[in-house]
């Protein structure tokens, strides 16, 4: 490699070919991202007459700090534990501890994330940036549901349209149609579908159950909002992954199916022992692509819920934009972006590790 490598080494040519693309990516993705990292270490504002100052990891600690608060129940003069009308122990309000209470500096300004009982005491997990924590959990939930469900549905659709039926191309193209429609447009349309009073979904369900279905305010209800957005996101993107699966299906040799038929395999056995093993690499690709797309959930939230109700649809990217642009806190928004990047990076490395070729 040291000497005489001009035939198989093409430093100049290689760079000449790669540099337009690579250079543009450095300039327009890598440098802005490095800038974002730099911002996250300062108190940079979107607009301000004041110069930014280096603040170290303050933005990260403000965002990620959690604390634990152990609360004793309220007792009356005789030492009995007070109970509320449901018969549960009554606890003092946490704002007593978190607001200007010098005895509890570790939870100063924090909010209750969740809590549980431990004996008579209540243990509260406190977060300094509760909205970010919720956004983090929601994002992970979204990924955890959407990646497998969308992948599986896409596979089922791919199997369906891989049948040798007359006119199957028509179905194929219909299933793909939502992919070509802008997500902003799709989100606007689905607001009508999810509407709580006279939405299409409610009226369809109402008809199907002969009036027994009680209308649900899909986007206005904490329990259904994120799920509704998941369903719509899957609806919009599943066609794309269907095609990727289809491409994988078409690489499986028909002779394998013939062999399975001769061996008398049931459809499930055929899938289990012929189709699925043949889709290994496709599966890796599908899962990775869906995961990455799911992590950048933004437009749907922006158009449909703005993160509500009660933060049940906050996501990291939405928060990063809201914080950085809406509230003009670039440094905070950038810190979120960096955390998201590290999160996705570690998850994709983990995925790659788990799906590595074992031999």
């Amino acid at each position: 490699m040291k000497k005489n490598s001009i035939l198989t080494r093409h430093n100049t040519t290689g760079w000449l070919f790669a540099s337009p693309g690579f250079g543009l990516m450095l300039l327009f993705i890598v440098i802005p991202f490095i800038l974002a990292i730099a911002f996250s270490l300062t108190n940079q504002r979107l607009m301000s007459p004041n110069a930014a100052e280096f603040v170290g990891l303050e933005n990260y600690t403000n965002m990620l700090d959690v604390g634990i608060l152990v609360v004793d129940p309220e007792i009356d003069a005789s030492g009995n534990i007070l109970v509320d009308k449901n018969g549960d122990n009554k606890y003092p309000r946490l704002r007593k501890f978190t607001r200007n209470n010098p005895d509890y500096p570790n939870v100063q300004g924090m909010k209750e994330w969740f809590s549980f009982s431990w004996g008579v005491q209540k243990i509260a997990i406190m977060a300094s940036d509760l909205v970010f924590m919720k956004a983090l959990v929601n994002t992970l939930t979204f990924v955890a549901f959407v990646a497998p469900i969308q992948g599986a549905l896409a596979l089922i659709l791919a199997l369906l349209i891989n049948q040798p039926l007359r006119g199957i191309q028509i179905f194929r193209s219909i299933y793909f149609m939502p992919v070509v429609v802008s997500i902003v447009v799709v989100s606007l349309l689905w607001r009508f579908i999810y509407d709580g009073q006279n939405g299409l979904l409610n009226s369809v369900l109402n008809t199907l159950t002969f009036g027994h279905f009680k209308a649900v305010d899909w986007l206005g209800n904490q329990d259904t909002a994120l799920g509704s957005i998941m369903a719509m996101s899957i609806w919009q993107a599943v066609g794309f992954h269907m095609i990727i699966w289809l491409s994988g299906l078409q690489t499986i040799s028909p002779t394998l199916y013939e062999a399975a038929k001769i061996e008398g395999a049931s459809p499930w056995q055929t899938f289990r022992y012929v189709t699925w093993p043949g889709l290994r690499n496709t599966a890796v690709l599908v899962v990775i692509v869906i995961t990455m797309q799911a992590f950048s959930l933004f437009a749907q939230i922006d158009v449909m819920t703005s993160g509500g109700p009660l933060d049940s649809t906050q996501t990291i990217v939405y928060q990063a934009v809201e914080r950085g642009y809406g509230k003009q806190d670039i440094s905070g928004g950038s810190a979120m972006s960096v955390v998201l990047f590290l999160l996705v990076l570690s998850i994709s490395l983990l995925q790659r590790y788990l799906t590595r070729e074992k031999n």
Partner: protein
Amino acid sequence: MFRLDKDNPTLRLIVRYMVLTLIALIFVTPILFMMMSSLKPDQQLLADTSSIRAFLPIGDISFDNYKAAFERAPIGMFMLNSLLVTGVTVVLGLLVCSMAGFSFVFLNWRGKSIAFSIILATLIVPFETIAIPMLLMVSKLPWLGLDGFSWGWLNSYRVQIIPFIADGLTIFLFAQYFKDLPKELIEASRIEGCSWWQVYWRVVMPLSGPIIATAAILKFLAMYNQYLWPIMVTQQEQYRPVLVGLQYFFQLNTAWGEVMAYLTIITVPVLAFYLALQRAFIASIASTGVKG
């Protein structure tokens, strides 16, 4: 009572088609709703959303919403801007990304693996998170145009085009495809006297039809549907693309019929383009898939 005969081939066929059609309905109804609504006056449109009428062209049907939409916003100009920006980005993007992919697969150079890792890493940076630093940057970039030298890229086509020419996914797709091309073809062309550019342009690219189609469509969709960035960089109406134009329809009193008309106007060209090419398109995506 009717019994489902599992072995009746006709019946099985009917069941299959029924399943396929039901699923098709799920995919097509929201789009149908959009198109039908665009033909109705606001009052009727909103009243219809709670029934099957939402999907039917019944009642007071007209193209008034379209007329109004065209009066409200310079739709033709937005559409031209979108097509120009999208078209140029797609063409340049395919060129630049395929060249990079070519270099990563067929050429051997110092720093290649690091560069490729960086490109893969960019795949996991959502655009929204770098939009502001990028805005700060493009506003200070120099430019040498026909009308002389200037600083700052805002309010131009270039600011909507150049940052999006190269993207990691397209480079990755090209590289994956190139890896599967027979190496002998490259070697044969080298022996026949091709320079590397000739290998790329006369041999590799002509063989890359499927991946070019796939990458073109994916890039087209991503560009045509851009939203956040054009809002930030097009202060002059003359440069705005269609999705920014959508904002023109959300005034204090939203005219939903016009909104639906506008949504239809900006969706239909893509849909038509897709339906016209769908066979080639799906075949091309399918043929570029990962090989087992």
